[in-house]
């Protein structure tokens, strides 16, 4: 708690700095002052009110929590505000949440070192930080009241934004705020014992944005209108890595409303007075592309090359090489042991957030400002700064709600943001430009979940448990070229296989990965490596259990015991308990369990085959995510994550034909609709551990749970996703 903070004066820090310090060092994380923060912070605004950058209390008693994390569905704003409100003893019904501007120094994600949302980390990294903010502010109010009433602070209580003394004196936050603002914040405020929480962990922690979002009033980037604003659309190369050779703008320029057409690094931009004109202008543009460096293969050919690498038929070329992610034990597998071999193929997946990518930029005339749903403001500042030649910290970002992201808006190249900045820079004068991607732009625009091939060979011992496990993974690297991708091994490609209890329970393991390049851009996609590793490990274990003649649930339990994994065992047991007796006729259960982002999820899916396709009914979900800050939001994330994972497992597939994406819109890229939506029941394992995230861990488990049910129904394992390949 008391580690020194670089970048702050060692002598008496100001009140404001104290709050920043106590917030930044809480929990031992010390990232304010580290180098990226310094670089990104120069030029940043640092004027905050008396309660620091995370909290404002107005004279009318209104309590506003400032969220450093974007809200695009995860429900984190509710949980973050509840942490402050709990320790502050604020009246929850009157607490509001607003989005923080970009400011790396004060709003860094303490798990990342820069401002950003991802890795299901919002609640986890803010847990000590925001509780400290609430507790410190509460102490300031108590001191102010004690001074005013001349009574000992220890006799004062706070409840629902009212400060009271046993003598009967009381005052609201609003009545005390002017005095409280003058009190020096305590350095080490006392936090509540979680046993005494009255808000956290209750169903009162509900979304603050539900009314606005149900009235069409929530403000998204798509909704931004500014005086004199232009709307831009960009013609992109149909092939990844293609460049503009030449273009003919004559027809486009004749479209009423089109203002200008010009080339930018990613293609040809059409700027117009409104969206429809930009759209029509872009459609009439004629562009010739240079495909010299473009991906021109089809996905079938790329996948075949993955298979050839995994099987040893092809040798790695260029920089590519096999890397070991797990190697333990030695010696030959037992003679005569049963061998189970399986290959698994996963397609490219688009995030297909409901709001296609977009951004508003005002560049020039003394302005460098972005207004949009920024998921990693620090990187968006950095990339903008590099394009316009400004200090990153001086780039202002107003973050709005985003209509989903699932990882898409967290991009170290700030792809669509940079594109918007290039257009706005060309327009100049600080004139606002809204870059709008159509659904087609978004769907064909890359940054997909990479295509992946796993080849697994397991030899069983005399008892039917794995004696030797050989695992090969072929996929593109997500982290390559990113500023935080400096490590030798791209763990995002192997996480979930690496660290699996099944590998821990296996005496001899040989796990290797190879990461071939392609101009096709790839990115994290809700739950990242787990999107495929959970499927492979959980579906594989059912196949092993079958080969061993054992019940898959008992088989898992035995492996968890061997691996010493009591958490998975407890979550699985909770799911089994809640699932109850076998389902009605016609439904078959499949089980899967996975841990990612420090959260364990077990699901029992009830499945039947209808016209050859799986139909998923009831899905019993058990989750261990530490202390449950907002049980209803956890349930919502399990429901939504399950739909997202099931959508991909059932239908998700981006394919290339000669390098060109074949799916352009929701007619080609089918997604889950209400007909296919399961009924998810969520049960939370009681815990005293600090909270872990829930935005992603609900996604990867349903696919293998359904595959395991199908295995039980048909006797056939699933070798590739999606389950449904007809349109």
């Amino acid at each position, binding site marked *: 708690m008391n580690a020194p903070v670089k970048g702050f004066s060692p002598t008496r820090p100001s009140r404001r700095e104290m709050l920043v310090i106590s917030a930044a060092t809480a929990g031992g994380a010390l990232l304010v002052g580290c180098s990226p923060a310094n670089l990104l912070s120069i030029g940043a605004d640092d004027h905050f009110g008396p309660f620091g950058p995370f909290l404002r209390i107005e004279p009318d008693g209104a309590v506003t929590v400032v969220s450093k994390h974007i809200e*695009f*569905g*995860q*429900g984190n704003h509710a949980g973050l505000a509840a942490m402050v409100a709990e320790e502050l003893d604020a009246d929850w019904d009157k607490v509001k949440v607003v989005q923080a501007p970009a400011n790396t120094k004060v709003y860094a994600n303490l798990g990342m070192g820069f401002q950003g949302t991802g890795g299901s980390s919002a609640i986890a990294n803010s847990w000590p930080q925001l509780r400290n903010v609430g507790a410190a502010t509460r102490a300031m109010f108590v001191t102010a009241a004690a001074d005013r009433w001349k009574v000992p602070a220890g006799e004062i209580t706070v409840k629902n934004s009212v400060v009271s003394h046993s003598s009967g004196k009381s005052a609201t936050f609003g009545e005390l705020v002017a005095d409280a603002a003058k009190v020096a914040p305590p350095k080490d405020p006392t936090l509540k014992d979680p046993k005494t929480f009255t808000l956290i962990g209750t169903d009162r922690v*509900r*979304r603050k*944005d*539900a*009314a*606005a*979002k*149900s*009235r*069409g*009033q*929530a403000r*998204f980037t*798509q*909704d931004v*209108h500014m005086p004199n604003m232009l*709307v831009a659309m960009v013609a992109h190369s149909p092939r990844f890595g293609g460049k503009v050779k030449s273009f003919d703008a004559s027809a486009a320029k004749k479209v*009423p409303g089109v203002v200008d057409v010009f080339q930018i690094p990613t293609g040809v931009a059409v700027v117009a007075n*409104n*969206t*429809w004109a930009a759209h029509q202008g872009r459609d009439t543009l004629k562009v010739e592309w240079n495909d010299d460096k473009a991906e021109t293969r089809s996905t079938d050919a790329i996948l075949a090359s993955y298979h050839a690498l995994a099987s040893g038929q092809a040798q790695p070329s260029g920089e590519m090489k096999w890397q070991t992610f797990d190697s333990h034990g030695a010696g030959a597998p037992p003679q005569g042991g049963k061998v189970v071999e399986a290959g698994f193929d996963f397609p490219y997946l688009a995030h*297909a*957030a*409901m*709001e*296609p990518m977009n951004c508003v930029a005002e560049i020039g005339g003394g302005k460098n400002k972005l207004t949009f749903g920024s998921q990693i403001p620090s990187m968006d500042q950095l990339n903008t700064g590099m394009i316009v030649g400004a200090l990153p910290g001086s780039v202002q970002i107003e973050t709005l*709600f*985003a*209509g*989903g992201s*699932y990882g898409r808006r967290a991009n170290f190249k700030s792809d669509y943001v940079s594109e918007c900045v290039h257009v706005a820079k060309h327009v100049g004068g600080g004139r606002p430009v809204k870059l*709008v991607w*159509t*659904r087609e732009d978004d769907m064909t625009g890359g940054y997909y979940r990479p295509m992946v091939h796993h080849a697994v060979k397991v030899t069983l011992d005399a008892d039917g448990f794995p004696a030797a496990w050989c695992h090969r993974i072929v996929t593109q690297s997500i982290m390559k070229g990113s500023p935080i991708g400096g490590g030798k091994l791209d763990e995002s490609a192997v996480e979930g296989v690496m660290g699996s209890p099944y590998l821990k329970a296996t005496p001899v393991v040989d796990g290797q990965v190879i990461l071939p390049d392609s101009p096709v851009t790839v990115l994290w996609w809700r739950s990242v490596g787990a999107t495929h590793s959970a499927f492979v490990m959980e579906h594989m274990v059912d196949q092993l259990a079958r080969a061993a003649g054992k019940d898959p649930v008992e088989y898992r339990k035995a492996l968890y015991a061997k691996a010493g994994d009591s958490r998975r065992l407890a979550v699985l047991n909770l799911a089994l308990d809640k699932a109850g007796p076998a389902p009605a006729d016609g439904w078959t259960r499949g089980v899967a369990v996975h841990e990612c982002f420090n959260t364990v999820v077990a699901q029992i899916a009830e499945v039947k085959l209808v016209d050859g396709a799986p139909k998923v009914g009831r899905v019993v979900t058990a989750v261990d995510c530490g202390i449950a800050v907002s049980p*209803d*939001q956890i349930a*919502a994330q399990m*429901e*939504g*994550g*399950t*739909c*997202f994972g099931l*959508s991909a497992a059932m239908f998700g597939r981006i394919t290339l034909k000669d390098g060109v994406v074949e799916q352009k*819109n*929701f*007619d080609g890229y089918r*997604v*889950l*609709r*209400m*007909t296919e*939506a*399961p*009924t*998810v029941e969520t049960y939370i394992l009681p815990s005293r551990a600090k909270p872990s995230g829930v935005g992603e861990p609900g996604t990867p488990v349903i696919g293998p749970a359904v595959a395991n049910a199908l295995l039980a129904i048909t006797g056939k394992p699933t070798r590739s996703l999606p389950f449904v390949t007809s349109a």
Partner: protein
Amino acid sequence: MAKTLDINGKSYSVEAAPDTPLLWVLRDELGLTGAKYGCGVGQCGACTVHLNGVAVRSCQTPIAALDGVKVTTIEGLEGLHPLQAAWVEADVPQCGYCQSGQIMSAAALLARTPKPTDADITDAMNGNICRCGCYQRIRAAIKAAAAKAPASATAAA
């Protein structure tokens, strides 16, 4: 070319080509941004509005087709529609981007069928994609709103 549109009970005069989709007139010209752009091809339902009480995709509706037609957008639902109350009660929205369209589809359903069956709900809502996967709560909220309405009531549209 000037065109007169009847939207949420008000008359608007807009300058736009007759083939301009209603969605872009609402959003860019009239500042009614509740209806969202999600696909532009009638696949997602994010742009749903009512034309004479019927749920229609505004991205597929050229303004030329709107002579004498009453347009209702989410901004035109009166007061807090029972569905909106149910939406808040059940914490339905996640990112929220699809929700205007979901509510407009559901409102048209309840106006027509005050006590819908599960199959009625699936039928009416299957054209509305929610990438956040709020389907279960959408269904529950429609049922909750329907349960509160008398069987003969016509929901405000």
